[in-house]
């Protein structure tokens, strides 16, 4: 994560008076980032033929369309004036981490072989919660190559409980 992203994220987070506001701004930022990253929008915003004023006007229309809150709208304008819109994904990531840290949460990626049921996700999340001792926010992916079981990634660490890995391990032991 870039230092610039962290600095901007910290500045916005410092304006939030409570956790609800903090989370709400985070969601707005993510919506803004998704729209700005869209090819048709990014072409307009990043074109060197466009003047700075034209960019500011364009981003003003976008934030209006998205109905963002005043702090987030102002934040977007500041980013545009400072020509930092290209850093928006890094800022969003840094803001998300700051929010998670403040709210005592941690994100985990759960990869299943097939689409999991809510109870399966909940069981794995509970298991990860026991390790992290923080609220787990899961991101679920599906990878059929795993055959069965689950692979969890938490704070850079991989917990592999997939059937594919078990079979590969058995294969390795058989071959020894």
């Amino acid at each position, binding site marked *: 994560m870039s230092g610039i992203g962290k600095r901007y994220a910290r500045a916005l987070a410092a304006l939030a008076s409570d956790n609800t506001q903090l989370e709400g701004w985070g969601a707005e930022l993510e919506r803004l980032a998704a729209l700005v990253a869209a090819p048709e929008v990014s072409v307009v915003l990043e074109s060197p033929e466009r003047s700075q004023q034209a960019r500011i006007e364009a981003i003003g229309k976008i934030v209006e369309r998205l109905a963002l809150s005043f702090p987030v709208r102002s934040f977007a304008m500041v980013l545009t004036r400072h020509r930092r819109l290209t850093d928006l994904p890094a800022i969003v990531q840094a803001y998300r981490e700051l929010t998670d840290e403040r709210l005592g949460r941690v994100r985990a990626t759960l990869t299943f072989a097939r689409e999991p049921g809510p109870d399966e996700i909940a069981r794995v999340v509970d298991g990860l919660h*026991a390790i992290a001792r923080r609220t787990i926010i899961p991101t679920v992916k599906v990878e059929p190559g795993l055959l069965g*079981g689950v692979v969890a990634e938490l704070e850079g660490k991989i917990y592999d*409980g997939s059937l594919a890995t078990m079979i590969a391990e058995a*294969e390795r032991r058989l*071959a020894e």
Partner: protein
Amino acid sequence: MKSMKIKLKTSILTIAGAMLGAITAFTAEGQSLREGEGSWFALLFYVINAAIFLAIVVHYARPAVRRLFADRAHQARARRDRAQAALVEAEQAARDAIHLVESLADEKARLIKEMEAETAYQVKQIRDAAAEGAARILRDSQLTVAAAANDARRRVRAYMAGVAGVMARELVQRNFTPEDQHRILSGFVEKLAAEARV
């Protein structure tokens, strides 16, 4: 002494020759007397002639004859001396040859003995080297065979493991049930709990 005897013999022979000549002349005179010719004077004449002849012959021929015989004697002695020296030399050579033959026989015996010893040593060396080579070949062969066997075992195990893996994956894809997933997740959660306790 020897030359004195030769001189004496030569004088006797000369005188005998002269008398024989005179007798021959006398006999011839006698024959003529029987026929009514010749006399003692003739005999004396012939004797004196013969004596003068002999004296001339002895006077002029003697030194040459003496030199001849002296030379012959000298040559004969020289030849004898050389022959004797050659004989001595030949005898020495013969003795040397005998000694050489004897020493050659000894040398031959010594060489035979040495060659037998060397041959025995070389045979032993060759036998030892052959034994060592055979042992090394055997050892290498055993190692090679063991390595090949290990490699073959490893390949078979790897192949079997691969086949087993493929079969396992196919079986899982065909027969995997939600209960299986539930069981696997239970095990996974237990592992997470165990890690959390650590």
